[in-house]
């Protein structure tokens, strides 16, 4: 035909760069900005110990008299200057945000991973086995979907408090949080995976694999799972943002990570107390960070959803 065809790039990176998904990404300024923001925040969180000027999680390094220092102004007592000011404990807000984002992201990623593992496993089982196993799992999923997630998280927290000895409660708090948030999110994955599994399992290649006696687990992992990773990835992205916000909400209700190692949500809960008293920076900067993080992850999820849906291209 009369068209000019650009030469196909070579090399792994070149091919990745040239793929449809990468192209759609480059074409979407929103996605690019969102990705850059997320990346900066994630890198900042991961490398917080290297970037942060202070270690806000080390109580010995804190001087209470540094508390409530406004941004870029010297503290009235100590004369110390902090970029984004300090909070009520004299913690450098900038450093605390980095470390807090680390906690929030950890909780978010771990909760998503947990929900994903659980959801995919149950979805595969339900879809592949069918019958009463399927009915049971989906009924549980229905109940779970209606039972409000915060309430569920509160209850799980209550249970955990009963089972975990007091000495370990603080250390376990973050894991309890992860399980609580994860448990309230698994249903979506399970539904998507179950649906896809039911479609795929009747396809010829799966039937063929069955006939030659391939182990069901192998069939599920090798053949069916790759087919559902697209939608799962989309749910996971949005789920990450959701989990980060859920963690913040729970901290408002008084369940969550210890205040000596605050997450972004805990920082906002603390900063919220200073909305009227004039220490705006304690609330503003963590809120902006959380908003930027959740918003950009959500936008990425949006873009991914559209980009992975072949019918919308």
């Amino acid at each position: 035909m009369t068209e000019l065809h650009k030469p196909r790039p070579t090399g792994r990176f070149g091919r990745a760069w040239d793929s449809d998904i990468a192209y759609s990404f480059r074409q979407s300024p929103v996605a690019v900005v969102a990705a850059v923001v997320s990346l900066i925040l994630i890198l900042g969180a991961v490398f917080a110990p290297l970037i942060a000027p202070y270690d806000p999680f080390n109580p010995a390094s804190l001087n209470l008299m540094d508390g409530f220092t406004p941004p870029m102004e010297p503290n009235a007592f100590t004369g110390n200057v902090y970029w984004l000011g300090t909070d009520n404990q004299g913690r450098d807000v900038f450093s605390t945000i980095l470390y807090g984002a680390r906690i929030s992201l950890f909780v978010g990623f771990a909760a998503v991973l947990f929900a994903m593992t659980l959801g995919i496993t149950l979805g595969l089982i339900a879809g592949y086995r069918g019958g009463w196993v399927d009915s049971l799992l989906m009924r549980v999923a229905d109940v779970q979907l209606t039972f409000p997630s915060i309430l569920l998280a509160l209850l799980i927290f209550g249970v955990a408090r009963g089972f975990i000895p007091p000495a370990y409660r603080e250390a376990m708090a973050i894991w309890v949080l992860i399980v609580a948030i994860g448990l309230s999110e698994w249903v979506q994955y399970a539904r998507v995976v179950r649906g896809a599994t039911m479609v795929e399992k009747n396809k010829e290649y799966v039937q063929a694999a069955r006939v030659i006696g391939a182990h069901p687990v192998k069939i599920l992992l090798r053949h069916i799972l790759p087919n559902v990773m697209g939608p799962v990835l989309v749910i996971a992205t949005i789920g990450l943002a959701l989990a980060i916000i859920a963690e913040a909400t729970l901290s408002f209700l008084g369940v969550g990570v210890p205040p000596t190692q605050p997450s972004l949500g805990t920082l906002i809960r603390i900063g919220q107390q200073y909305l009227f008293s004039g220490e705006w920076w304690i609330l503003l900067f963590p809120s902006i960070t959380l908003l930027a993080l959740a918003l950009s992850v959500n936008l990425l999820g949006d873009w991914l959803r559209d980009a992975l849906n072949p019918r919308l291209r």
Partner: protein
Amino acid sequence: MLAFILRRVLQSVIVMLTVALVAFSLFRFVGDPIVSMLGQEATLAERAALRDALGLNDPFVVQFFSFVTRAISGDFGISYRLQQPVMELILSRLPATLELALVSGIAAFIFGVGFGVYTALRRGGWLSSSIMTVSLIGVSLPTFLIGVLLIWVFAVELQWLPSFGRGEVVDLDGWWRTGFLTESGRMSLILPAITLGLYQMTLIMRLVRAEMLEVLRADYIKFARARGLSNRAVNFGHALKNTLVPVITITGLQLGSIIAFSIITETVFQWPGVGALFINSVRFVDVPVMAAYLMLIALVFVVINLIVDLLYYLVDPRLRLDRSAAGH
């Protein structure tokens, strides 16, 4: 049909019992009500006596059995904290929560469907992109912060709207106090309703958009266009109606979460509903109220599920066949 209803009722009973069991076993871990109930001067013997009187020393099974048997007759005991019958307490707070949930739910649904349809039909337009992005703010900030910010802007700085409570309420027949009939009641609803509804609106909007995009590519939509039906008829008569089937299910199921999220909204706005009652009860370890609240949520779940099923049944003729076939 009868078999279907019976099956649903049976399932509902099982769900309620499960919730009761789970909830009840949890209460042993939420704290010790005795400390809150007795003052600091109470002696250890007094504490033990009260614990005994409340049956807190009975075996778990005994406590649970007595709870369930009494709950069946609507008797959830008396609040440890407010010393009122729990049932009466919850019923007196329920109107506030239901009015709030209703208003925010309806607003969320109307705006969610409206924006969802718009953004689906104008995919790629700058306005729909903006709506999509801005709406995300609703799910990218914790609810409590949104509430506090709204109070700050609209109650403190602008002084347009009240910051707390329900305003003047009007008592209807003594069993339902409504805030709809007074101006202060309606004004008081605005901020909490926005706070509570924002998240749901975003959810519904995205759901509608996704479903609508899906439906717009369906063959019957193409066929409708090929028959020369007007855009209006195609988009709203055909596409929207089909979109709404799954949307109704999911938003219906979300109603439960509206009521749960009202815990936060009600706390922030001092809204006198069951959510605030619950969270105060948790702090005080007011076990009877907590138990009744969870049972209420379970009941709401069961009822909503039933309603959603019936709605589905009304909207989607295909189910009528399946269901009636299943019933024979």
